């Protein structure tokens, strides 16, 4: 799992370490958007599938299912990853944040900026882009345009929202808005 593992990531026990489980369902515990979930998943299920199909968190989109478009980007222990290339069983004991867990009552400033700058067309890639852009600003509050482009280089937006996405992120950085 990502390097910047949060200190409390080991809070859940890693129930399957050492033992062999599957091919049927195995029990895992993970924290999703602040709620600890006990789930029975097949070892072959990806995190993206489990979020969408078992937890009905359909904001995470699957578009290529090979890590080549980043539509399925969520955070594992705070780092943006392609959830189609992570098995759910791997994140046993870890902390997952999906687009649904980003905002509380109010939108995150990045989400507001996406609306303001119309950094949205069909919107299918948008949740993943939002997750990567927020993660960038968490680690680099004042990125350059090139840094924004590099941070979202793995994302594919077929509609071509990149100019507005970049403008939105730079605008948030300029205004010094951080997470609420």
């Amino acid at each position, binding site marked *: 799992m990502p390097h910047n593992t949060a200190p409390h990531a080991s809070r859940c026990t890693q129930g399957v370490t050492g033992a062999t489980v599957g091919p049927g369902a195995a029990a895992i515990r993970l924290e999703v958007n602040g709620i600890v979930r006990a789930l029975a998943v097949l070892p072959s299920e990806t995190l993206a599938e489990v979020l*969408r199909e078992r937890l009905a968190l359909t904001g995470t989109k699957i578009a290529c299912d*090979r890590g080549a478009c980043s539509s399925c980007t969520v955070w594992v222990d705070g780092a943006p990853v392609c959830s189609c290339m992570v098995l759910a069983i791997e994140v046993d004991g870890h902390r997952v944040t999906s687009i649904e867990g980003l905002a509380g009552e109010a939108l995150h400033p990045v989400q507001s900026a996406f*609306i303001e700058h119309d950094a949205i067309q069909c*919107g299918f890639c948008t949740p993943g882009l939002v997750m990567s852009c927020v993660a960038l600003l968490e680690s680099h509050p004042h990125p350059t345009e090139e840094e924004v482009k590099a941070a979202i280089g793995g994302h594919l937006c*077929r509609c071509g929202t990149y100019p*507005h996405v970049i403008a939105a992120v730079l605008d948030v950085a300029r205004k010094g808005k951080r997470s609420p």
Partner: protein
Amino acid sequence: MSAGTRTQLQPVGIAGVSLGQAERPVGAEEAPALAPNAQLSCIGRSAPRINGHAKVTGSATYTVDVTLPGMLHARILRSPHPHARILSLDTGAAEREPGVRAVHVIEHPIGRAIEIAGPGEAGPARRQLRYVGDPIAAVAAVTAHAAQAALERIRIEYQPLPFVIDIEAARQSDAPPVFDRPVRTEVFGGPAAQLPQHGNVHGPDTSASRGDAAAALSAAEILIEGEFHTQVQTHCCLEPHALLADWRDEGLTVYMSTQFTAGIRAELATALGLPLSRVRVVVDAMGGGFGSKSRIGNDVLAAVALSRKAHAPVRLVLDRHEEQIDSGNRPATVQHIRAGARRDGTLTAVAIEAYGTAGVALGAGVGNFAQSIYDCPNFSLAQSDVFIHAGPGCAMRAPGNVPGAFAYEQIIDELAERLALDPLELRERIDSSPVRREERRIGAERFRWSRRLAPGGGQGALKRGLGMAQSHWPALVHTNCACEVRILRDGSVEVRSSVQDIGTGVGTVLAQVVAEELGLSPGDIVVRIGDTDFPAGPPSYGSRTTASLTPPARNAACLALRKLIAAIAPTLGTTPEGLTLRNGRISSSDGLHSIGFREAAGRLRTEQIGAVASRCDDYGGFGHRMGDFAFARNGLGGVQFAEVTVDTETGRVRVERVLAVHDCGRPINPRQIESQVHGGILQGISYALFEQRILDAPTGHMLNPNLEQYRILRSRETPAIEVHVLENYQGTSATDAYGIAEPSIIATAPAIANAVYNAIGVRVRTLPMTPAVILEALGRLPHRS
């Protein structure tokens, strides 16, 4: 002028340049003339997207997110062979697989060229498979995995047949034929004479020719000639083709990622023999289409058949591999162009011989662009479809015009150079469009076109180049198109249409138009779209939703308001005649009576009132009509300027900057228009530099059926883009608004190609312009022994 019409003065001309007024005949039910944007409060402003909140929070519901209780999952079995006959097919074992609920065999595939059966023939007894990925059968099971496993239990005996996937090879007389019989000639928009077919070559279609091009070419003072090759581009919608079919005794409901709910309903009703009233098509959020989700395909019919058989809803979502090989594509083309001109630049003759391949489908023509953009008395066009054993092409954003402009706008650039004319000056002479003239003027100034050097004039390995190109696209209007506006007793307002928002933001545009008419703000309007239970709206293709739907939306709002006024006038102790809506209040001209909009609605005797309006003809009529749609009198222009750098040692082309000047009639939401233009330009750059379907000649398989080796522009290839949109009033409808999605992609690839020429002094006539292509053009490839 027919009965029930009147004339009214409409704003006409380009704001800031030539804005005036002209009298137009309009129908009696039409709303009064709409003032120019500067005088309006909702239209012409960048209202935020109404579904923006849902899209940034992940709560927007796409078809892939829809589930129903008891839903089954379907997968499709596809041909592993580029050409084969099915000798036997046995689904017994698949049907007995655990979890399988239904199996459907596709006997009469659609979405491709259809052979004409000979007299007394029922068609071939055995199904022929004509490309890798050709659908054979579908299975519905309790999980997608079970369905996939069952596919592998379908027993098929194939007789592989010879095949051809290269367009040049397919044209040869001894090439393996894709079709054994002639196929039915089909052209966009209506019937056409049956074209000849020899081997795999269907055509040529010469119907657009005029004058005597051959004679004029031989007499021409200047002759320019070139052959251009363009590749297959795939749509790569981020949301795959997806549907959930729910067949019930009382009727069929289909949740589907589609560009045309009403059209899908009509196609399904026809295919299934159901009345329109028993078919419902629904799409909420929609993850991109670009032309590929316009019609029903084999996937749709298979899912419906499975639902009917299994008595359960069936979900079918294509995977990325299927998307790449069998969801449509932009056809490849080979275009040979000869252009003759006088020494002053006047075009005297153009002859285009074009071959294109849409795989097993028709529709690879490119001639519309050259035929329409510049005046030329002698024009000869011979375009043919070449069949190959590859997945069917279909419309993709500005079909035909994108490859057509890539070639023709380079020919014009060459002509300018030969005449030692600035490319802008040549177009001043040959382009009769006053709108593009203004666009060139604005663009040249803001782009600082005058700094352009002679071709190949830069120093060092990294060469900089500037280029420009123009676009032309017909302004299309769907006339089978209606919209309803309802005013509810609490003062809330709904606008309803079956139109779908594929990402352009049409719902926001409707809210703006209705809000403008009712003195409200766009956020006050509830937009209900994407459902055939609402009045049938237009398709989201042909850049026609705004042009088609905003006039009836405005007229419906106007009619609903009149009904409201009529209903509440007695409660004010007056008659409706003198009452109008001003500043949010319904007031009489004498000022004696006045009531707020919401308060007025509260006086309704019924819960709601509403009005439905349908799209009337453009004021003054259309250019011509084709069934459910029509061509407006004037087309849509556009001029794009590109600045590139070419690394002459590595062959890398980088687009540094694009400046686009476009017109779309009255702009309704400038920022959404800018988003559309960004999309067109970025897809155009991607087409020019990166994208191509790669087929393996020995096996017929696509080698890059993914989003990794099928390369697409992303963030770091995105240049600085400036968009300028004219307010070009033509006085032709209640909103005077037209489309922008397609015009915005047409000029991009040729502008880049012209800029590449300007940078390196070598003409690149092949797409995509990869490092390999550029290095070859520069003569930098090693000599091979």
